[in-house]
């Protein structure tokens, strides 16, 4: 772990927000909601976040930030809409809801208009980086086992597509296609253990694929 550095100007650190929980205890009648009802939380206050990243890390973040900067004069600013992507490019794994929260719950129409500079971005990134519950291999597999009707380690591709496109933070059909490319066998079944490994390895540097 790199040595931690506390920025002198920030006040005492605030405790990270508790993660949103899944749906509350089963009720008889209503169908499951697309997004679980979160407990009421105070709004995100960037000023209260102490930066614990090292100088090296911060320099690296700046590089990534600059890569995504599309301003005509290179002002080191990104749009709200890009914020999530930059965080993910830096190895964080927030949900869209997490991102909206640290952005202060902006209106949808503001997302492509309002800009974010690096100084404002950094505490948001710090906050997101403290999130626990990133989800591990077992979590994934457990979740997918729900759809394993025959208990044989496979699920129907069509069903998974449906889930990804309709539940949680919905993906578009295109996104689903890209994610599932080459995963289904001739019968349209997916071995979900392999699938999870595939997702988790997705961003790891590919060794080689076409050797000709």
């Amino acid at each position, binding site marked *: 772990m790199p040595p931690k550095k506390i920025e002198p100007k920030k006040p005492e650190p605030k405790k990270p927000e508790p993660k949103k929980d899944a749906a509350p205890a089963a009720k008889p009648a209503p169908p499951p909601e697309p997004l679980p009802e979160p407990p009421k939380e105070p709004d995100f206050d960037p000023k209260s976040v102490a930066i614990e990243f090292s100088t090296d890390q911060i320099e690296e973040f700046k590089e990534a930030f600059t890569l995504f900067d599309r301003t005509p*004069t290179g002002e080191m600013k990104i749009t709200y809409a890009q914020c999530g992507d930059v965080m*993910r490019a830096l190895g964080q794994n927030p949900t869209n809801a997490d991102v909206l929260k640290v952005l202060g719950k902006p209106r949808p129409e503001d997302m492509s208009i309002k800009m974010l500079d690096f100084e404002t971005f950094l505490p948001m990134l710090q906050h997101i980086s403290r999130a626990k519950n990133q989800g591990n291999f077992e979590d994934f597999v457990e*979740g997918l086992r729900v759809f394993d009707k025959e208990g044989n380690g496979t699920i129907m591709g069509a069903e998974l597509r449906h889930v990804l496109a309709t539940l949680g*933070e919905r993906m578009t059909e295109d*996104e689903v296609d890209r994610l599932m490319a080459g995963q289904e066998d001739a019968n349209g079944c997916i071995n979900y253990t392999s699938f999870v490994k595939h997702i988790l390895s997705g961003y790891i540097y590919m060794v080689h*694929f076409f050797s000709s």
Partner: protein
Amino acid sequence: MGCGVSKSNQFHKHSRKAIRAAVLIQRWYRQYVARTEMRRRYTWHIFQSIEYSGEQAQIKLYNFLGYLMDNFTPSSTERNLISHIFRENDVCWDSEWERYFCYKNIEVPEVYSGPHLTFPLTVEQAVGLLEAFRNKKQLHSRYVLELLLETWKLLRMLPNINRISTCHSKEITICGDLHGQLEDLLLIFYKNGTPSLEKPYVFNGDFVDRGKDSIEILLILFSFMLVYPCDVYLNRGNHEDHIINLRYGFTKEVLTKYKIHGKRILKLLQKIFSWLPLATIIDQKVLVLHGGISDTTDLSVLTKVNRHNYVSALRPPKRRVHSSAAMSIDIDMDDDLWSTSKIYQRQASLTYPKPLGPRECFHNRSLQDFSTRIKANMENELENSKKREVILAAALHRSQQDILSVSTDSVSSDNVKDEWRQILDLLWSDPMNQDGCMPNEVRGGGCYWGPDVTEDFLNRHNMQLIIRSHECKQEGYEFCHNRKVLTLFSASNYYDVGSNRGAYVKLGPDLVPYMVQYQASSMTRELTARQSVGRTERSALKVLREQLFAHKSDLLCAFKKFDTKNTGLVSLIDWASAVESVMHLNLPWRMLRCQLVTCKMSDGMIDYYDWFNELAIKGPNTDHIDQSLLETLYRHRSTLETIFRIVDTDNSGFISMEDFRQTWKLLSVYLKMEITDEDISTLAETIDSNHDGSIDIDEFMEAFRLTDKKSRLERGRSMFMGTTSDLTKLEGDPNV
């Protein structure tokens, strides 16, 4: 699933899990997409930085050679080695050129299975040519020469700036850089239809270099232009220039495909390139040109220039002393005569005002060095020049009789300089986001121009849009300057498979641009996004590692400055700034660090000696060669190869030992490095194993791993030049 109460508990518990799983998968997917996008972006930066610095290097080399020409004694071997590329190519007399183009003696053997052309060309023949190339046939040199002759005749009649219109509800299709990528041209014609009366086209330059089918693309474009002269328009690009072609592969391609007549074909193409129009204007409102504009671009000046005088945009035409005096004559026939007229002109050119920008810096720096290294043999010269005067006078008398149709205006030096600069700007400039206009030092030619310059220019000329090419764009096109400038690039997968799409533009009478994108190569369709980014990234990193290795000595110096205690370690921050200070590529080094430095870091410090070992490129049998020499070889391999090809005057692919030595002397002067005779002999021996006194250029480059066989892309293109392994595949019909 049932809907009873007991089961519904189970249902909701499952669906809770399902939702959680969905959310997990979705966020991980989104992370993957973002990381891929980031990798794509820095990969792009790497390629683009290296590409532009390659262009800059070529310009520097050319300036260096120009300097040699201007300042070496005429008898010096170095100068003789390279003088031929500076020969002026003026049109003296039509009949002379017709003779040179003469294809009538060239027999087409019966075994030839390619297309036969008869002139005037018909559309069926043009389409037939397209098909033949699609089937990997090669056009016989006789037909090539005939086609080029007809093309030249047509081009000479065209104005500098074509003016066309979208009347009759015609949509005009505009294509950007093709760079020898035949697959893209075929794809465009497939999607959009071939050129015809109903389907006019404008091709915006850079038809050649880098891709492996440059000559085929030219032949197709020329043939359609001959069939539909009012519906096919070609603009000149910065790669329609024989100096650039030496480095970027077109020269090599032609010489390999046409072993007997390649040299002649290239010479004619030099002429043809210089006759290509400079720009096209659509409906008086849309300007289409290859590079861009500057704050001094003046269309009324450009309309009047003698564009064919600018055989290479990199060098202004020599100032003519007076028309009756030193008319340079194309001289394949008479070396002496040529060299004497050159001397005469040398006086003029020494006083010729030097252009702005990096060229000037180079000249200033090198003047002191060269004066000490090269002795101008003044006495000898004076004596010789007296002799030459006599010869010259006789020659001029003869040539005056020959010359009938040459302009007798003696162009004043200021006019020429201004004209030249305008043309250079047209072919080399790039837009920038800030207001203003400044020299384009990254490329070494043209300028960067800002939105205010665009605004001013469009207002002045009462136009509404500039369409240009010259820069590779990920989506095949990109608007800037408030949508008043459109960059259009038609070579997909330019840096590597999957790196970018290509695009063409359709413009109807409403003059609203309609973009069509595409991506050639079945390979791309099979690759998933992850795989294609991965491949491109691997290529880019490999190229980058090679560049780093090639700069080892400078990097070592830079590291030592930070490592004052000589521990062999530098911190990450110091590593990044040292690397940037040497490489000047403006890349996100920290982000790339984990890909570039795989040896372990201790306490956040990098062991740079370890790192150099990691990067080291070892060729076979190179252990006996000095490491620093190897590094030089590697770093300047493109320059080296370019010089070889220049020296190889008969384009045989072989140079003599003596010329080989002279090449090294040239290089050592250029690089201001010591390369001893012993070094050179050692190098030569590694290659010339049969001691027959000649060096095979390609073998030499291969032997030192200076060409990169292993990273051959399917499209057979390298960052610098194509290699033998690509082109041997093209050696089909030996009879061409």
